[in-house]
């Protein structure tokens, strides 16, 4: 009964979305507040209906109702409750319902957003409604998660054990909030193109309306990607955290476009300039989200992260992507030439710096797009198969970003309209000098000495120190008394703290990524109990291996002692090899010893034999210096995004809901 309610609610949501679209469009054309108001009601009701459907799906998973095909295919009675619930969004059908839920909830929030002018709101509601219609129709007609099985099996096929992990339980919801949050930016951009006013007051206001949505989506996406990378790091057992894998790239493209949007929306809000460009980026960010969904779900690209793949439905997603993006960009091409105006600015100015930021972020985004799709295009064109992997991005994406990071700290210190480059240079001189020292220290501290890695360490230090310099400048540190500086620090808007924190977080990430990539040490050996593997400063001794029984798996569980080679505290880690009988798969559970900023990363491999015939296990050990910073940096960035959202200035133009 509950399952049928869910199925009904999903159809109801589709009908409500159709109503929302029609009433909003009609209300806009007839200038009828009654119709437009009814569209807002439909949007809120649609969100409620999808929430009911999603709740029903979670319920079916929680009670293991195997008469539902989707539950039977993705769940199992032995699974812990967390993974039963998480399996609700682990499959194609379930993840699509989650997508629709986020889409309609954001649509409802848009309906309640305050201070939006009548025309803009109605047009945006119609656009958001149309997106809802497309995705809900896709869910209802091709991917119904509530389809029944008759007869019902006694046991389910279980979820891929790789996905049975706390990080992965929360990764999709966060990622989807980010992906789909950009739909509101998309709708607001389409609405702005339709309403298309070239007057000076419209675009700054529009920039203020669109910014919180971009900020929230970007922060969610940052958190989601970081969690995914962390999962890959400790669950795949390869010692790496980013593989430039197509699915990773698919989530990274909207992130880059979203980051560009965040920055260009500031220019539009503050100066009314770059209106066309900001609109373009708003369309682009959600287009990349849809492209990501298509790439991941259709299986056109092979990836270690692709689960729940289905080519035929992929084609439907491609059609949705083509229709929405095609229509939106056609509208853009038609209307954009009119979007002139806004404040003028000199090349050296805050606006100029933000334009540079956009230049590098979009070029980087294009690089990722090219690297991801090129093998497909080439194979279609002449049948040649190539692989594009980490070395390609190291030679293209990384230099682009390095140049952007070199310029970054100067941006926030430049004045609007016309900046004073010499003044900024003076204010950053201390930070630049210290960054050079950091690079030198990095060169001395790590073995073997590598000039490029040392430069990377300097660059990370430059970003952190540049952010600190900005704060010091804003609170006039050392130029006024400490009490006065403190008063100024308290008076700084949260948005300013957000900027500084996000840029510092980026620096923290760069430090971690550079040091880990440049200086990690790996060792592998087949060892019997009591023998050791040595990696750099650490040695790891295999103490014993037992067979343990988990809720839905059996494991060989190894206890290993990690100690510094030249003496020092020894710590015990557990590394497991788990076997899941339900799906017949084996996964690794990495043993991680956190040593300050470093990780000692231990993987228990297959059982073998020593030369003498005693049982032995292949053990791989990585010493990953500063690996902690790789995940800490983006976490700081996501928090910084949240902090900026709390800024009073961003809350002025929009409803209360979004600030949370």
């Amino acid at each position, binding site marked *: 009964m509950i399952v049928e309610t869910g199925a009904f609610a999903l159809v109801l949501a589709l009908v409500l979305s159709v109503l929302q679209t029609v009433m909003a469009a009609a209300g806009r054309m007839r200038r009828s507040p009654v119709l437009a108001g009814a569209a807002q009601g439909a949007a809120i009701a649609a969100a409620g209906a999808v929430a009911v459907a999603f709740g029903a799906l979670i319920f079916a998973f929680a009670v293991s109702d195997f008469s539902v095909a989707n539950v039977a295919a993705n769940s199992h009675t032995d699974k812990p409750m967390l993974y039963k619930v998480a399996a609700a969004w682990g499959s194609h059908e379930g993840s699509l319902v989650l997508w629709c839920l986020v889409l309609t909830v954001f649509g409802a929030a848009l309906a309640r957003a305050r201070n939006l002018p009548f025309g803009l709101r109605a047009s945006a509601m119609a656009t958001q409604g149309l997106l809802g219609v497309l995705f809900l129709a896709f869910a209802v007609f091709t991917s119904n998660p509530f389809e029944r099985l008759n007869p019902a099996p006694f046991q389910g096929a279980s979820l891929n054990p790789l996905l049975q992990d706390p990080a992965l339980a929360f990764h999709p919801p966060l990622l989807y909030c980010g992906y789909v949050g950009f739909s509101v930016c998309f709708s607001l951009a389409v609405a702005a193109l339709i309403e298309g006013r070239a007057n000076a007051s419209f675009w700054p206001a529009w920039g203020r309306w669109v910014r919180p949505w971009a900020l929230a989506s970007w922060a969610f996406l940052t958190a989601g990607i970081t969690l995914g990378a962390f999962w890959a790091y400790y669950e795949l057992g390869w010692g790496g955290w980013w*593989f430039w*894998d197509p699915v990773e790239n698919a989530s990274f493209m909207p992130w880059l476009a979203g980051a560009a949007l965040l920055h260009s929306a500031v220019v539009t809000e503050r100066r009314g300039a770059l209106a066309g460009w900001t609109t373009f980026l708003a369309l682009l960010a959600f287009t990349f989200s849809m492209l990501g969904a298509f790439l991941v779900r259709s299986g056109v690209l092979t990836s270690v992260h692709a689960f729940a793949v289905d080519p035929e439905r992929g084609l439907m997603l491609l059609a949705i992507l083509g229709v929405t993006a095609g229509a939106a960009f056609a509208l853009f091409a038609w209307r954009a030439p009119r979007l002139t105006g806004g404040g003028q600015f000199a090349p050296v100015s805050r606006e100029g710096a933000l334009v540079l930021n956009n230049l590098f972020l979009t*070029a980087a985004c294009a690089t990722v797009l090219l690297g991801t799709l090129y093998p497909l295009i080439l194979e279609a064109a002449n049948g040649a*198969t*190539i*692989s594009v992997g980490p070395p390609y991005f190291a030679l293209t994406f990384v230099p*682009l970003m390095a140049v952007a990071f070199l310029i970054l700290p100067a941006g926030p210190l430049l004045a609007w309209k016309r900046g004073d480059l010499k003044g900024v240079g003076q204010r950053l001189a201390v930070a630049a000098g210290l960054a050079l020292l950091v690079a030198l220290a990095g060169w001395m501290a790590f073995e073997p000495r590598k000039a490029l890695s040392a430069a990377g360490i300097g660059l990370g230090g430059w970003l952190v120190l540049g952010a600190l310099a900005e704060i010091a400048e804003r609170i006039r540190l050392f130029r006024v008394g400490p009490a006065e500086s403190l008063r100024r620090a308290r008076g700084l808007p949260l948005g300013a703290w957000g900027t500084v924190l996000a840029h510092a977080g980026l620096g923290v990430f760069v430090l971690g990524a550079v040091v880990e990539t440049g200086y990690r040490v790996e060792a592998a050996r087949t060892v019997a109990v009591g023998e050791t593997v040595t990696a750099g400063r650490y040695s790891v001794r295999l103490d014993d291996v037992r067979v343990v029984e988990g809720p839905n798996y*059996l494991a060989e569980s190894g206890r290993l002692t990690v100690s510094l080679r030249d003496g020092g505290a020894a710590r015990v880690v557990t590394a497991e090899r788990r076997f899941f009988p339900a799906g017949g798969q084996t996964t690794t559970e990495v043993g991680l010893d956190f040593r300050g900023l470093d990780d000692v990363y231990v993987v228990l491999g297959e059982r073998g034999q020593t030369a003498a015939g005693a049982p032995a296990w292949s053990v791989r050990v990585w010493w990953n210096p500063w690996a902690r910073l790789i995940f800490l940096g983006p976490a700081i960035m996501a928090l910084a995004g949240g902090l900026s959202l709390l800024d009073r200035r961003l809350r002025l133009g929009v409803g209360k809901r979004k600030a949370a």
Partner: protein
Amino acid sequence: MKRALLIALAAVGLMAAEPPPAPDRPLPDAAQEARARALFTDIRCVVCQHEAISDSPAGIAADMRQLVRDEIAAGRTDAQVREDLVRRYGDFVLFKPPVRGGTWLLWFGPLAALLAVGIGLVALSRRRRDETPALSAEEEARLADILASGADRRDPDAKPSDD
């Protein structure tokens, strides 16, 4: 009973899902071994999904690692090892595609994108400078109003450059 069965199943699963590949035997020469490992990360396991042979547990990845080690031990250069692999498995095996006719767009595309976006943005700001008449006094006043209401600064002596 169930438990015994599960353990038996697990034993099968843990040990014989695939015949375990021969364990890696590192080269005795540390410099050669380091070269081999550097190559492993750039070479794709041909049956896997976007995995380098350094990462893949597949049997063929182990074979490919052995192949690379053998060639390096035989005194071949990195480039020669790569050539051999390409001869066997095609360009697909390299994570860094070769620069040739079909991949020019791939390799020079990023630079082209940088130039294209740069030129586009410059043109956009140029055109605006040429075409847009200065704001009238009334418009300026309205703009200032809006900016002031949006700025909402708490710090009274902040310069306009702040934030």
